[in-house]
């Protein structure tokens, strides 16, 4: 655990998991009259994976740019790693890792040369550079490509090298601006494995923006942003739980009888074309009782849990533009992720 941070002298931690590493108070960012970010406040806690989820134009990039000192706030106060982004931008930059949407590697250089370049610009002490190069390459599983030219890397490998590079100077927060769209499913899996592993092994706090539901799903906490405002902020589970119960749809030999029987026992029910819809706390657990209470033979059962899409719909009245990305949900990562919890 927390290998990179093992000897933190600057903050005399043993990592305090409740300590905010990003603090945003009433942040406003205007372009002319238009408020792209319209008064948002939130904290990112040390060691968590925090996702900013929202549709196109919601203000995700604008927010991340302010947090990374690439844009000035119009109003409000933003502290990153304890430093004010306006007053001490260089101190902030020394303490954050940035992975942009577009590639920013020099592909005529080798992986090692790219990392070394970064190390010098970020003032990594010379005697630590070699050890860190080895360490970050190990973290993203690229140790065997250390001396290869980046021009020979696949898109996914280059992406992982960028993450490794962003970790060279041991940042307190790693910012991932919109993990890109053009990556193949396997690469996305690897990327998420990396991100989650970084948090586990290096104790890195990760702040990412995305408009993919499935990606936000991996985060410890999600802020849903729309029209420059945070409309909801919580763990994925809590967000889903907050908008209501699971629903179980029963198709029976006689739906009218079943509906009446379930209503009599006290379930909240609704007749739908498919049969009977029942609102319950925990869908899967309720199924046996429901089948027993229906009183007629049950043909099929369908349990529906609220998705982040439902959450978004609930808070904004609109559906976030879902893409084919849903089909790419990396099952391997998901399994890995749930094991972790």
């Amino acid at each position, binding site marked *: 655990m927390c*290998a990179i941070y093992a*000897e933190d002298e600057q903050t005399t931690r043993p990592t305090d998991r409740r300590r905010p590493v990003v603090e945003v108070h009433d942040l406003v960012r205007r372009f002319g009259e238009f408020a792209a970010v319209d008064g948002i406040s939130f904290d990112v806690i040390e060691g968590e994976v925090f996702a900013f989820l929202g549709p196109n134009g919601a203000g995700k990039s604008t927010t991340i740019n302010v947090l990374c000192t690439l844009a000035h706030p119009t109003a409000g106060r933003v502290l990153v790693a304890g430093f004010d982004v306006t007053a001490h931008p260089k101190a902030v930059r020394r303490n954050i890792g940035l992975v942009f949407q577009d*590639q*920013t590697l020099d592909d*005529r250089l080798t992986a090692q040369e790219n990392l070394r370049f970064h190390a*010098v610009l970020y003032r990594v002490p010379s005697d630590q550079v070699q050890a860190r190069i080895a360490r970050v390459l190990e973290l993203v599983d690229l140790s065997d490509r250390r001396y290869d030219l980046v021009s020979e890397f696949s898109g996914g490998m280059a992406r992982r090298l960028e993450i490794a590079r962003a970790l060279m100077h*041991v940042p307190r927060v790693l910012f991932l601006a919109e993990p890109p769209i053009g990556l193949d499913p396997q690469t996305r899996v690897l990327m998420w494995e990396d991100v989650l592993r970084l948090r586990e092994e290096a104790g890195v706090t990760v702040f990412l923006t995305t408009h993919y539901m499935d990606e936000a799903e991996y985060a410890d906490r999600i802020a849903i942003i729309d029209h420059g405002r945070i409309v909801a902020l919580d763990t994925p589970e809590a967000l889903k739980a907050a908008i209501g119960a699971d629903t179980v749809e029963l198709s029976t030999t006689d739906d009218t009888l079943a509906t009446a029987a379930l209503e009599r026992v006290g379930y909240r029910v609704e007749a739908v074309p498919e049969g009977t819809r029942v609102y319950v706390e925990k869908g899967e657990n309720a199924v046996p009782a429901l089948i027993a209470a229906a009183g007629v033979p049950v043909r099929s059962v369908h349990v529906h849990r609220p998705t982040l899409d439902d959450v978004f719909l609930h808070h904004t009245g609109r559906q976030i533009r879902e893409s084919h990305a849903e089909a790419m949900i990396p099952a391997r990562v998901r399994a890995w992720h749930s094991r972790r919890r």
Partner: protein
Amino acid sequence: MSTVPLRPMIAQRPETVLRDEARTTGMVWLRELIRFERTRTRILSGLIQPVLFLIVMGYGMAGLVGSIEGFDFKKFMFPGIMAMSVVTTAIFSGMSIVWDREFGFLREMLVAPTSRASLALGKTAGGATVAAAQGTIMLILAPAIGVHLTGALVVEIVGLELLMAIALTAFGVFVATHIERMEGFQVVMQMLLFPMIFLSGALFPLNGLPDWLTVITRLNPLTYAVAPLRQVVFAAQHMTPRAQARFPSTVEVFGHTLSIGAEIAITAGFAAIFIALAIRGFSRTE
């Protein structure tokens, strides 16, 4: 997974700031060298153009101008061609920032917690080293043209090339920081680089030009960078007075012949101005 004990960043002490900035400049310089060394084709193509000029113009004009007591137009041109090679490479290197921007690497540099001046200086130093190297490679042609080389002369040539290269690379950096896209690069090359080279005395003597052109050549920074190079080369060639009169190597301003020291000082002055502009341009780049 192995655990390497790594120390995180400690707040910078003032006395280490300068050293860190110098390391940054050195790293940016090194990157330019690595890239130069890895692009052999660029080194080669950087040779082809000057050689073409030397052959086409050198031999073409040689017939017209003739040889004066063993000294011909090819020998006159040779220092100018070296200068041309240095200048082209220098401006190209400085302007490679446009490529860095296009391929994203510029962003990696710009967001780093480092002074922009260190980056601009590194880029300038790197480009200048590469340009001087490219110019020095031209010396392999000297025997074929009949230009006599001595150890001291080579040292003088390299020194003058470096000075010229620093000025022009900084100029390229400055221009590049004011160009958003690739198309602008072509325009600058056409509108600026070639006129500068043609009106610098690199390819033909500047005497006997119409007054208005003479004024332009005297305003051209390159004029003062090319002249010293030619003077040191000529000084080692045992020219007769007649040849010297036919192939002048000095620059006259307001009727005064500039000394080599004055020319070097003027070039150094231009270099300082361009470096300042390059730093300013880099600092303002987003």
